[in-house]
């Protein structure tokens, strides 16, 4: 039997995901000693782990080259939808928020607002839901800079503690949605390998709750 291939998001979610896998009795030594390898057999060859950037996890799962993936809801909202989202894993919790300069009413006035963000799709959808026309500018790095230097009226970004906002005299105007890590599955894999996947999901679910 081919091992079940799981794509994991590198970085922020990596540690918690490995802890979760270990808590359900899957040996993850290979990941701890990964060196430069990109595909790692774990759990006595029953599973195979691929470490990838968040958005790539979705790509690999959508195309079916990975059966399962662990990725943040932020990435899911921004990129693509054609896969199954099976489980809220509970870690990596934060929020999407609209923020702007402290004391300034973002929604005031008739002029079209400009919003800087790393997440243009999330931003567009949020304002569409408010029937508001906004100008969205994509920024790659520290989004907080945009309103400070006068590029935009506000930002839509992930807020964890809010300390970066406070340090830059910005404040949350409205929360967009909650975010946490999710377990996703390829559409065909869930049908073709139902039993294996369901067993894993049941074990994870018991740990998460």
């Amino acid at each position, binding site marked *: 039997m081919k091992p079940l291939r799981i794509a994991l998001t590198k970085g922020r979610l990596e540690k918690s995901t490995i802890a979760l896998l270990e808590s359900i009795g899957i040996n993850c030594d290979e990941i701890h000693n990964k060196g430069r390898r990109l595909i790692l057999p774990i759990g006595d060859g029953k599973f195979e782990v691929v470490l990838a950037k968040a958005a790539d996890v979705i790509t690999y799962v*959508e195309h*079916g080259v990975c059966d399962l993936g662990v990725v943040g809801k932020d990435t899911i909202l921004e990129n693509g939808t*054609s*896969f199954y989202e*099976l489980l809220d894993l509970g870690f990596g919790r934060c929020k999407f928020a609209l923020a702007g300069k402290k004391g300034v009413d973002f929604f005031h006035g008739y002029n079209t607002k400009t919003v800087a963000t790393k997440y243009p799709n999330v931003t567009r959808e949020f304002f569409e839901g408010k029937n508001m026309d906004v100008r969205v500018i994509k920024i790659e790095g520290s989004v907080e800079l945009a309103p400070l230097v006068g590029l935009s009226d506000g930002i839509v970004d992930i807020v964890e503690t809010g300390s970066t906002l406070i340090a830059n005299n910005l404040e949350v105007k409205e929360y967009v949605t909650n975010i946490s890590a999710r377990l996703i*599955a390829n*559409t065909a894999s869930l*049908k073709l390998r139902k039993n294996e996947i369901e067993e894993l999901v049941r074990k994870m679910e018991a740990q998460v709750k």
Partner: protein
Amino acid sequence: MKNNIKITPEGTRDYLFRECTAVRDISRKIVNVFENHQFHRVITPALEFYDLFCDDSIGISQESMFKTTDNKGRIVVLRPDSTLPIARLVSTRMQNEVLPVRLYYNQTVYRNNPTLTGRPDEIIQLGVELIGSVGKRADLEVITTAVESMQTLSDDFRLEIGHSVIFEALADDLNVSSDVKDKVKTYIENKNYSALNDILDKLEPGETVSAIRKLPSLFGGVEVFEQAEKIIKSSKALKAIDYLKDLYNELQSLNLGDKLSLDLGLVQRNEYYSGIVFSGFIQGFGDAVLSGGRYDKIFDIFNSSMGALGFAININYIAEQARNSTDKNIPDVLVFAKTDSDIMPAIKHTSELVRRGVRAQFSDLSDESQAREFAAKLGIKEFEVIAL
């Protein structure tokens, strides 16, 4: 301006040698299945009016269609689907036909996918439509045709059946706006349990809410019926489940084992389905290769009422699987004409060889050493010189 003369648009590709023979072979096998069930081929235009596909109930987004205009400025699209054109054809040109009619197609459809996703925009699709009949007989025959088609693709396949009325009946019992209903539907389709729970938590708890909560997990074998009957109270939904059970039991005679499964939360992306729905999956391909169902409601668009069902199979992936193989069909014999006066005899001789079942090819090269070199490079074993 840069001329794009050496590349093809994103989402399209050339098919060569093995890829083409793979597409041809698999199409033949599937067409065979269709024709054995007495379906007849139709060809519809690649260009159709946008109006045909823009109805909300169709579920094909405006963004996913390639558009241009005709000479009167009306919007036309490259057909994104073959079912609607066939429904159009049947409700207009075939309205006096004896019903039911059995039609099949083998043609490309076009979808403008988001950039850089690696998905094909030009999809080679084969499908059947059985139009003008309702009920169990038609449903069972079309599902059997789908099973036989899947069997030509792979031994390791799954065909999953569901019923669109199960979700609809439950959603109708929910006292919510159509926006919320759409969201619930998407979450069930994507088995997005967490978002589904979020949205259901905001609603008044009750039988319907807890049934919908469970709906995406109701897939698998026969045990699904028992689970469903415990949690679903809506009589309309239960009636649909009973019908599905009946079909499932009948289909057991095909001895498919776990290749035939159930998904009570199966909601197709196209919204025109109004009865049984089904999807087919094979190992090694990440999405459904076959999808179909009953779509009686579609004929409302044409102000006629008719029962209809069908399915479509995407076969692009077959070519994808063949892409690593570069071998061509190499002929056994290369026939060379010594002088110009030998050309016609050599061509006729080649045809004669072919008639006798030899893979022979006439050489278009006029220099014998060049022709021999060509044969050697290609690996053609026999070189025959015609000289009178």
